[in-house]
Every structure is written in C-alpha cells, then in structure tokens.
C-alpha cells in the first residue's frame, strides 16, 4: 500500500471516529509540480489529500490560527521533520497545546518518501534527538561556503544586492510558523523603528531584525525562502543563525516541548566570549 493511501486511510479514520476535528494536509496545486494546503473536516474530503515528494511546505503555522485550538479539540497535520520540530517550539512558546496536535509524520529523500511512526509530538523525541546529533554544522551548501570565504565587505555587498530587491510584502513572515506575533515589530509606528518603505536601509533593518527574531527558533523548513516573490535566499541567513546557536550555545531549535528559547535563557556554562 502506498504511503499516500495509508495516510489517507489514517486521516479518514481519525475524522470518522471523531478523534480530530480537522486534518491539514496537501492537495494538488496550480501546476502539476505544486502542492497547496488542504483542510479536511469530514472523511469525504480526505480523498483530496496528496502525499508525495513534492509536499515540502511546513503546515504547522496553520495551527496557530486564532481560535482554531481554543475548543480543546484535536487537529491532525501532515508534517516533515522540520514541521515536527516547529510543533515543539510553538508548544514551548505557549502558542499551542501539543496534546491537541496529531502528527502524520513523513520524511522525504529525493523522490523517496517514508512514514515516521507516531502521533503525539513526544513520540518523535528520540527521532529529533538523533537529528540534532547528526546535524553537521558545516553541512555543505556551496553558497554558504562561498559566503563564508568572502571578506566582510564582499559579504555586505552581497546582502546589499539581495536585500535591495525586497519589496516588503512580508510573505516571508506570513509563511513562517514562528512569526506568530499578534503585532509584528514592523507594524509598530510609535516609534517607527523600521522604515516601511522598500529602500535598502529599511530592507536591511527588516531582514536583520527578522533573522534575530528567528535565531535559535528557525527550523529551516524553507517556507520563507519559497514564499519570497523576489527570490532572496533567506535560507542562508537562517542557516547561519542556526549554526551560530548550535556552536555557541549547543542549541538545536525545536528539540523538545520544554526547550527554553536560546536568547531568553541563561546557563552557567554559556560562553562569555562577548563580554570584554
């Protein structure tokens, strides 16, 4: 039985038995190689679900939709490993109750797709620990390596070029499960720290602030990168911050539902390299 059929059956059963009120999964998109989210609240709708290696978006962000989980009923959601980690973060940051989330987990490698055993996020604990242990810091990415080898000046102009393209559409923010604030800092105008008009300085302010807000929280799902209409390689910024959090503070984002945010917690053995 293909994994798609297997998971459809499971989704159907969950809805039929009333264990969940909604299943969030993937469906066909506007072109053959695109997938879009599908929200199924009855067993009949489940047949629209698709599961293949093109299903890469992190759907966890839909769970924090205002009011969705306030009736204490459960919701099932299709998640890749990064998505499962983002459930941990959202739970650790008090944005949802992880027990209300039934995870339909899967993993892709090339065109291969495998199921991940479990339902509650706790069932994936060991799997995530293994991920964190196998996380290769220098995880080779030719562009990252190129950037690392640049001089500070060259790197600055690289980002200047990239950020100058930003049109401040905030699609990256909208797509990111971690950008759940009711009011984003860019929307503050008393005082207006970040310029709203799309010029390079204001764009820098926005993108750098977002990078800091995602430090130690970004799970590298790539939602923002894919959402960006002008193709700014946001994943490079996020990857760099993740490596920093890992190297400096041994912090792997989304390790558990009780993980403390790296920028708000203090450990006695934290490095003090920044204190003169």
């Amino acid at each position: 039985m293909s994994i798609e059929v297997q998971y459809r059956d499971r989704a159907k059963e969950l809805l039929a038995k009333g264990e969940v009120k909604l299943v969030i999964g993937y469906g066909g998109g506007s072109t053959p190689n695109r997938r879009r989210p599908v929200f199924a609240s009855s067993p009949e709708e489940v047949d629209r679900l698709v599961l293949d290696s093109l299903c890469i978006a992190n759907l966890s962000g839909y769970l924090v939709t205002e009011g969705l989980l306030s009736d204490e009923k459960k919701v099932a959601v299709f998640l890749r490993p990064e998505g499962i980690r983002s459930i941990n973060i959202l739970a650790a940051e008090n944005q949802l109750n992880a027990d209300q989330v039934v995870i339909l987990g899967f993993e892709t490698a090339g065109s291969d797709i495998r199921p991940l055993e479990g339902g509650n996020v706790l069932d994936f604990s060991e799997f995530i620990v293994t991920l964190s242990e196998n996380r290769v810091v220098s995880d080779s990415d030719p562009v990252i390596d190129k950037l690392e080898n640049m001089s500070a000046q060259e790197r600055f102009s690289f980002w200047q070029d990239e950020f100058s393209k930003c049109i401040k559409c905030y699609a990256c923010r909208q797509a990111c499960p971690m950008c759940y604030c009711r009011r984003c800092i860019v929307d503050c105008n008393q005082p207006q720290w970040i310029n709203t008009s799309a010029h390079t300085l204001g764009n820098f302010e926005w993108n750098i602030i977002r990078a800091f807000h995602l430090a130690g929280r970004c799970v590298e799902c790539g939602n923002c990168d894919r959402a960006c209409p002008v193709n700014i390689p946001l994943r490079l910024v996020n990857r760099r911050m993740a490596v920093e959090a890992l190297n400096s503070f041994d912090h792997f984002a989304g390790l558990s539902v009780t993980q403390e945010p790296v920028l708000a917690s203090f450990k006695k053995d934290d490095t003090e390299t920044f204190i003169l």
Partner: protein
Amino acid sequence: MAKIGVFICHCGENIGGRVDCSKIVEALGEHPGVSVSVEYKYFCSDPGQESVKKAIRENHLTGIVVAACSPRMHEATFRKACAEAGLNPYLCEIANIREQCSWVHSDKDMATEKAIDITRSMVEKVKLNNNLHPIEVPVTRRAMVIGGGIAGIQAALDIANAGQEVVLVEKEPSLGGHMAQLSETFPTLDCSQCIMTPRMVEAAQHPNITLLTYSEVEKVEGYIGNFTVRVKKKSRFVDMQTCTGCGDCYTKCPVKKIPSEFDCGLGRRTAIFTPFAQSVPNNPIIDKDHCIYFKNGKCQLCVKACKFDAINFTFQDEYLDLEIGAIVVATGFQVQDTAMYGEYGYGKYPDVITGLQFERLASASGPTAGKILRPSDQKEPQHIVFIQCAGSRDPSKGVRYCSKICCMYTAKHAMLYTHKVHGGKTSIFYMDIRAGGKGYDEFTRRAIEEDEASYLRGRVSKVWQENGKLMVRGVDTLLGRPVEVEADMVVLATAMVPQPGAKEFAKTIGIGYDEYGFYNEAHLKLRPVESSTAGIFLAGACQSPKDIPDSVAQASASASKVLALFSKDRLEREPVIASCNEATCAGCWGCVLACPYNAIEKKDILDRSGKVIKQVASVNPGLCQGCGTCVTFCRSNSIDLAGFTEKQIFAEVMGL
C-alpha cells in the same frame, strides 16, 4: 509646548578645557523647544544648583538637561534641585559630556561637536519624559553571611550585636576558615586559635545568629531588601540535637588513614570526624566517600559506639528557603596548587611543603603537636629554605598580582622556627620585601636582626634531592651570582587564589568577579565593600588577598552597610519599571524566562463567561528592577520601561 532648560557645566577644566562650552550654549539656545541655555563653572556647587532652581521657577521649565559628568555622579543632585523647584525629579536628564566626551578626546572642535550632539539627544529625550513617582518596598531585616572564616564571623557578630538577625552559612562542617589552621599570627605572634575560637563560640551561641554549617547556598532570587535564598543543609548523618560531641564514634571508626584536609594532608582522620579538636559545632559528620557502610552496607561501628543514638545513615539533605534582606559574601580564598612548579618538586619530595602546611606543623593542635618535624622522617630540620612568590607576581606560570601576605608569613615562619629549633638556620629567597602595615616592617626587621633570617634576593630555579638533602639552586641578584643552598626542608610561599568554583558561585548569587575569580567591588576606592549588586556586600579574602586585620576591617564595614540598610522600614526605589501591553503581547513567555528578578507573571485574559481567551505577560511592579532585559527580548515590542520608553530612546537616537 516644551520649555527645556539646558545647563552646560565646565566642571572646572575637566570639560571646559576640552570643549568650547559657549559654542554648546549657542547651539542649544537655537534648538527647538529650548528656552534657557546657560553655562557655569560648577553647576553642582551650591550657587550652581541655586541658578538651576531659579531658572526652573522663572521660566516655568517643563524639563531640564544638565550637560556635565556621568549621571552616576550627580543625577541625584540635580533631581533633588528639580524637586525643590517644584519640577518632577524625573524631568531631569544628564548629558554626559565629561566621561563620554571631554575626557576621551583631544581635538577640541570635534569634541565640541560631539558634546553638542550628546546634549541635543538628551533634549529630545527629556521632551518625552513623564512625571514619575518613587516606589516604596519593604525591607526584610535578616542578613545572611556566606562563609564562616574570620571575615564572616566578624560581620555576623557585628550585625547580631546591633540587634539584627543573621543566618551564617558555612560550607565546611566547622566555622573557622583558614585562620583556624594558622599557628601564630603576624605581626604580634599571638596564637591564632586562642583569638579565633572565642569568636567561633560566640557566633555559635549568639541568640541572633542562626548557624548553618555544612551547608551551601544554591540559589539567590529577589533584590535588595527582599532576597529569597535557598540553602542546602547537607546531611551529617549525625543528629546535632542529641549528639554531645563526646567523640566515641571516631575513636571506633576503622577507616583511620584519610588525609586530613584541615592538616593539609600532614595528619590523618577517620571517616566519621570533626575537622579539628575545637570545631564549632563539635558534632562530627560522616564522609560518605570513605565510610565503609556507604560502600558495602556493612560496619556501623560508630552507630554502636554512640551512647546517644545520634547517628543515622538514612538522614537526607534538607533545603531551606529563607527570606533575607541583605547578604555579606565572605567566602575567602585557597592557596594555589603549586604543582605547576615542577622544578620546585612539590608533591615529589615530601619535605617540600607549602606555607599553610608549615602553619600546621607549627601549631600546637597540629599533627606534630607544634614540633617542626620533616614529613619524610619526622626529624627536626636544621636548615629551612623559604621560597617567596611561589606563584605570585609570576605572569608566566602563576598569577600576576602580589598575594600581599606571603612576605609577612614567611618572616613569621622563620621566626617561629628559630624560636622552636635553637640553632636552626633559615634562608629566604625573595623578590622584594613588602611589609606595609602597622608594625609590619618592624616585624620583618626583627626576623632579620633578632632571629637571623638570611634573606637572598633572587628567584629559585630548581630544587632537587642529593644525598638525603634538598638542594636549592637560585640566584643572589644583589651579589650577581648563582647560589646553591643545602636544605632539610623547603617551604613555598604559595599564592592566595580564589576558592575553587568562585566564578560559578558568583553567577549563582549574581555578583561580578575579576579574571581570577575574586569578587568585584562596586568602586575600588569609594565603594570597596559593596558588590555590583545592590544589597550584596563583600568581606575578606574573597575580594582580594588580605591578611586578618584587613579582613576584619572590611567585615565590620560591610556589617555597617547592612545595618544602615536595616535602619529603615521601607526602601525607596526608582520608579523605572516595565509594563506590558496586553493587546499586543503574544504570550510567548520569553520575557518571563529572561527576567532576572522573576518579576513577570503569566496572566489569563478571560471573556465574559470566564473562559480563558488568551494569556499575556504582566509585570509585578514590586519586583521589577527596571533592568530592561525583557524589553530587549520581546519580539513584538510589547514591553516598555518607564523613564526609558521606546519613544524616548527613539527620540534620543534620532536627536543625534
């Protein structure tokens, strides 16, 4: 409409010599919203303050900026002047054009321009300042003294004798610290234990002192006047109420060969033990690591020996949460491990010992009952070589600083030795003799003149053994030639270094420390007994190497600071506190975790039927210390700090 007064102070030549104050007056005079812009030689002087008050009254000013020194110096002065002139004191801002400008620049034109910018930015800020009113908080009148050496005991006694409650916490089984280990003390050569033990007993019996020995501070929360301290009372496995200290247990204990920490490894102790005969309290403890029962469940000979059934192997550690108003840290020092000087042979040759070990040999209570005998063969040495600065003033292997006491105790050791071993010879290798202090130089002169200590100026390069003797090779820099001296024993004056784990402990209680781990005072000259954290004071060798007189003096000084704090019922606190915007807070609890004072609570927002619709952060104004940590953390900018609001900071930055 803003009517701001700007007062530019020359601070004599301090500011006036480097920046053109008239230019600042002129520039600020034209700045929008400024109605008064004047300069004066010393605004902090009486006439200076009067002129500020007069300007406020006559011009109905809505805020003032004093461009002068750091706000740490005179913010309070000018706030008071405002209050006296009828202006809310928080409508006063200081533009620091001294420390941050005139003192650090040499180009007058550029410095003047910078001073104008700094002042402008503060004018922009003060325009947005609001009236604020001080907050009052209660003070818990109970002090905690951490460390029961001479410094801690002195501080505890001074506070207790003034009628206030003290909790004295000592991590070892007995009070006393290093002073209990010493033989006789410079510069008067009085017996250390004879002057120490009465203090220990007094502290233990004082009705205002609660003594917690064999206990450690695990956590400090709260702030000045209102700390909560968690103390772990480690289990002694001996009930202190029923134990009489008779000692039957340790005479029966079969494990007898444990090197005694108190005797620096020169003596032996049992697994159930008191560190020394005059221990206070004198109830023994069981050393779990060496006790046979804890290894294999057998033995219990001590239990059988105890007539009072005081020993119980099931006793557990206890935790106490104590409400404390002020803390004195008196955790002392340790002597540096000299193993890094391989060439001196410490650890390799038994007759190369440290100064502290020599103290134990010279003590009547020590392993040799006060006789100076070599550890290797228990024979009386006829010639002792002392090596000073074995670790101190040695940036390459030891520590850079001078340990301050070693010159003195080495002279003392030489004297004690010649008093005890008639005809004994001493040679002392030294770099300088530092004997500043009352009666100190006279003391070292006495060692040379009356007790014939032979001082050789120079460092030792090697110690080795030859024909049963220790050979010491060094240089005599005054004669300009190498020397080799034959000795029966070598004593190293090892450096005084912070306690092991001193840095960790500083983080636990939240105070600052230097590169070595000595605790930092708030100001080396003017606030030498206050730590950088309000309500936590320092005493003794935990702050820097000190002898007994200095440790005691600092202890009494910190006790007086504690008593001053306890002289009031309530403490006035700055109204600089945070508040949360419930409409925008995302309830992520980042600030709750980040707040070092646990001042932020989780609050439920309910709908009309009482159902929780969201959760938000809520700052407890009584606990908030205004540090601003939460503000920097909050991603949605939902927390703001009174007196330093986002709007004010923004205006300040844009004013530059």
